[in-house]
């Protein structure tokens, strides 16, 4: 049975990467959203198993969107998409101090890495990478 993943990012190019990564994969359906608000509507309407969320977006940013997701979906796996720079990390420290769970995925994204992360989460498998 196929599973739904959602990427929330204001950059069209990033949304396209997700669509391309799984266009030939019958087991993964990709939903995309250009804003936090649009993403929340997908989560409400679809059975989403995994979310990738851009940290910096105009309007509702990644942290605000994450907090909104956690209100109704405390166990939904959410990956924050960000470069691992100090100034970006400080924005997320408040979330961990508030006990809000999330995972991190490095931006820019590489297709093979993205596929490995999605498959490992959806299938509870371990990927070994040299």
């Amino acid at each position, binding site marked *: 049975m196929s599973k739904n993943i959602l990427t929330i990012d204001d950059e069209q190019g990033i949304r396209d990467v997700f669509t391309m990564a799984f266009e030939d994969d019958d087991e993964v359906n990709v939903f995309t959203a250009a804003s936090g608000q649009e993403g929340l509507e997908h989560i409400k309407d679809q059975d989403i198993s995994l979310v990738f969320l851009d940290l910096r977006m105009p309007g509702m940013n990644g942290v605000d969107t994450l907090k909104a997701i956690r209100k109704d979906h405390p166990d939904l796996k959410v990956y924050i998409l960000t470069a*691992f720079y100090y100034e970006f990390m*400080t924005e997320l420290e408040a979330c*961990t101090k508030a006990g809000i769970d999330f995972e991190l995925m*490095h931006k820019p994204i590489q297709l093979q890495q993205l596929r490995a992360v999605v498959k490992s989460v959806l299938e509870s*498998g371990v990927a*070994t*990478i*040299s």
Partner: protein
Amino acid sequence: MAKHQFRLYLSGNTDENEALVKNVQQSLESLESLFGKDGFDFNQLSILEHGEQAQFDGIFCTPTLLQTKPKKEKFIGIASIKNLKEALKTSSSS
């Protein structure tokens, strides 16, 4: 045989991550015979505090268990401890 060294990269100090650290530590201890007489070292790093180190190590997601010695390998999707043990066994024998 060189001492095996493992570094667990996490997204921060949450309850979920603390539980994961314990599980990974126990998994490594249960597989200690694979690592020879020198055993293993294990430590954990939050990417929120060690982003530059994570980039240097080629980490692209959390959680990732990085083995730095005797060979460099990354294990991702390690929430399943059973599968992690299998992956460590396979890596150790190859």
